């Protein structure tokens, strides 16, 4: 049954919130400033409002309901204690312009989180400013830009991006005013060293590397890659999207990365929220640390925490101090897991991915036949004619599973990218593999089952072309 819109539930005069009675005189509002016609917001009762959103919520797939094997998204469990701590009044009701002496708890939390992230990643300094991974990328690239500028090295106009990269990577370097140059992958899924070398010259500002990369593979030649870029005067940005594979196992800063962002909403268990908020702190070492955006929490010699702007900072990326509520959740997670817990999480994430890859390898062969990290990419090339991985993905919905990421990375034909995360039990992995097996069987004997899937949801596949051709971007019931 269809879900009514808020406006269908409305009736003039119905309301949830009663306005407090006024204890002051009415002021004059000049007529020319006053709104002529009321904004047509809904008019519903509190019960109907709660029912509306309760009902909507049940139409969502979520980690809390089932397994979410979305490659590159790290859909791990979002602990409930994180939600409690972030809602503590001392955090949630604190104002960003409260004098720092009166919010030392906030600053200590920020400082401790900066320290923890730095220790885990091998960077000297961390800024918590960026609101999400993509803003972290922009931050890092702008830092590299300003670094070169500060040295008078102004000819570096290009930025290298592997062909397996997330779309945010080239978009971020473009926003920073660079031209993206694509680097090919080799036959083992690594950056093609020869191609890289052919591209590296004094026009290169840097390279953006996701490692493990989006194929779920650790760059086997990572040290050579870093060396090559550094040799031509470029810097190396690490996209931390896949940090969940290597916590406590290798520190990017020690490998030679110059700057990197963390996706706290992936690796540090903060919820994805149906699209956000995230948090994308950036760590940097060496000379780059002075370019970090601020303010950054520091501990002064008198034991007070302070907020400081790094001396050559690229400036603010965000008002105030980043997505603080997300930082509270991430710090809660850091304390809960501890150093060895984080390492164990990465080990289990990688073990689970390899285990699951092994279970389905005969029907959905991994594109590169290597041990994977926390995710693996298979190809649906061998599926029967006319069956795409998208069909398989949609059919999974009928079995109660969320589709994996499909058609990405772009360099793998009919890609299917699976990331189980460490918080799913082996029983869940087994069940998922069994269903994949069943669907692959169906694809041979009853392909329509896949083409028409999903069958049991409120809506089946939606016409995305029509959505663009005849855009309806707000509820037509309203004014």
């Amino acid at each position, binding site marked *: 049954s269809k879900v009514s819109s808020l406006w269908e539930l409305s009736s003039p005069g119905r309301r949830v919130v009663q306005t407090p009675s006024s204890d002051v005189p009415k002021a004059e509002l000049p007529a020319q400033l006053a709104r002529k016609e009321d904004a047509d917001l809904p008019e519903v009762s509190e019960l109907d409002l709660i029912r509306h959103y309760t009902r909507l919520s049940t139409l969502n797939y979520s980690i809390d309901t089932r397994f979410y094997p979305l490659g590159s998204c790290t859909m791990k469990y979002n602990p409930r204690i994180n939600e409690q701590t972030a809602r503590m009044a001392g955090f949630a009701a604190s104002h960003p312009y409260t004098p720092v002496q009166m919010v030392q708890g906030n600053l200590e939390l920020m400082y401790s989180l900066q320290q923890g992230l730095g220790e885990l990643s091998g960077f000297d300094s961390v800024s918590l400013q960026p609101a999400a991974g993509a803003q972290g990328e922009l931050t890092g690239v702008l830092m590299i830009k300003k670094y070169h500028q500060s040295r008078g090295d102004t000819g570096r106009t290009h930025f290298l991006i592997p062909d397996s990269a997330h779309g945010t990577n080239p978009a971020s370097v473009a926003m920073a005013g660079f031209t993206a140059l694509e680097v090919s992958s080799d036959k083992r899924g690594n950056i093609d060293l020869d191609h890289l070398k052919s591209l590296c010259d004094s026009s290169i500002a840097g390279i953006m590397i996701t490692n493990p990369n989006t194929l779920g593979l650790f760059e086997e030649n990572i040290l050579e890659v870093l060396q090559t870029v550094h040799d031509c005067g470029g810097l190396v940005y690490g996209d931390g999207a896949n940090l969940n594979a290597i916590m406590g196992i290798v520190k990017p800063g020690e490998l030679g990365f110059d700057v990197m962002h963390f996706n706290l909403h992936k690796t540090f268990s903060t919820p994805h929220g149906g699209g956000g908020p995230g948090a994308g702190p950036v760590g940097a070492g060496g000379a780059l640390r002075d370019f970090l955006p601020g303010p950054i929490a520091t501990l002064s010699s008198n034991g007070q925490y302070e907020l400081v702007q790094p001396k050559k900072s690229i400036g603010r990326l965000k*008002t105030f101090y980043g997505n603080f509520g997300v930082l509270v959740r991430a710090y809660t997670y850091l304390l809960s897991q501890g150093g060895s817990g984080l390492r164990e999480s990465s080990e289990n994430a990688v073990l689970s991915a390899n285990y699951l890859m092994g279970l389905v390898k005969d029907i959905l062969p991994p594109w590169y036949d290597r041990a994977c990290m926390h995710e693996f990419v298979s190809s649906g090339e061998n599926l029967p004619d006319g069956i795409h991985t998208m069909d398989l993905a949609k059919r999974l919905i009928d079995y109660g599973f969320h589709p994996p990421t499909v058609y990405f990375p772009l360099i793998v034909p009919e890609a299917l990218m699976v990331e189980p995360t460490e918080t799913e039990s082996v029983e869940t992995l087994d069940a998922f593999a069994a269903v994949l097996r069943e669907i692959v069987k169906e694809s041979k004997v009853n392909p329509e089952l896949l083409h028409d899937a999903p069958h049991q949801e409120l809506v089946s596949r939606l016409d995305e072309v029509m959505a663009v051709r005849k855009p309806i971007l707000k509820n037509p019931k309203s004014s």
Partner: protein
Amino acid sequence: MSYNPHTAEDRQKMLETLGLSSVKELFADIPEAYRYPEVNIPEGLSEMEVKNRLSSLAGANQNSEEGLWFLGGGIYRHYIPSVVDAVLSRGEFFTAYTPYQPEVSQGTLQALFEFQTMVAELYGMDVVNASHYDGAASMAEAALMALRCKPGRQTIYLDDNIHPEYKEVMRTYLSGTKAHLKEGLPGEDGACFITAYPGFTGEIKDLKALSGLAHDAGALFIVHADPLACSLLESPGACGADIVTGEGQPLGIPMSYGGPTLGLFATTKKLIRKMPGRVVGQTMDASGRAGCVLTFSAREQHIRREKATSNICSNQGLLALAAAVYMAAMGKQGIKETARLIYDKGAYAASVLDKVPGFQVKTSGPFFREFVLSCPRPARDIAHELELKGIFPGLALDRFEGFPESDLLVCVTEMNSKNDIDSLAAALGEVSK
């Protein structure tokens, strides 16, 4: 405290299946010298211990539930109806991913679709996206969009009423481009002219006049508008705005030390293909059933990569949901009444504080929520003295360049009673002596 379900036996079973003896073997691709480094992070704690630690940090903060609170300046203390967190706390919402698979994401999608509709109503605009990081990021993205809309024009003109931190963010964003910021009315090189509504210090400008100036110069007219204020004041859309940005925090979002909040972004139908950020549209399935999808994704980074309108990926989805619940809960009448209450209380506060000897309200003309109070001594000192007594009289504006040290920005919302205001007046009277 670990969230890993794998028991020792589970790990053993999995390793055996893989023909491995240790999980370490899976990390052979990592250069050996760097593998398994020392990590100086303490052992994990139990939930009880973690909660104690976080409680003690939270307890070390002054929070706005205590004391007399008149501190604003971009983040505001408004009442959050109980239904907001009740909805946000549902795991099906907060543990969901971005709704790329519409068949199993109609909850988030319809909620965002309705969010877009309500913001469009308040702003009087055609199209609203599903959020940016915060108000400043929205404004910066609007400037970048103006540059795309007006190729060849490289100046972003700002009105004199833009929040100083927003200007900092804009500057950072623009450092990736050839464009630059300039304060003043737009010239021929202007891609856009941006004004705030109300301004950083609360005053309400005549948008229609500004719209005319901007358009006459061939620039886009961008209004950074407070969504609550727009329920009372003429909408930016009705005044000719091409783009409207806003900070959605007043719409049911906790202050949370400044984040996460919610960047609002609206534009006209004409400009939709230039707009950054996700947008939800309604369409149909093969059986003619209506449903929502993420649409116009050809603008976005995951499709268009370096040619995208923005790099934005994760946005502030859950906060957009909060704002949706808030707007629906306030409703057509409630939101306007609340805005009116804020307007009236602000006026009352100004009238009372203006009478305190030595103090003078600088803001002339109508304002919303905030006004500038000129103090007989540095505002910073006065604020400091009162804060020690649990009274937060406002924001000393000299923290920002260009403001005199006497200026105090006083914020009044529906949460401040007449008594609170009178007490503030009395306290200021005391401290000025």
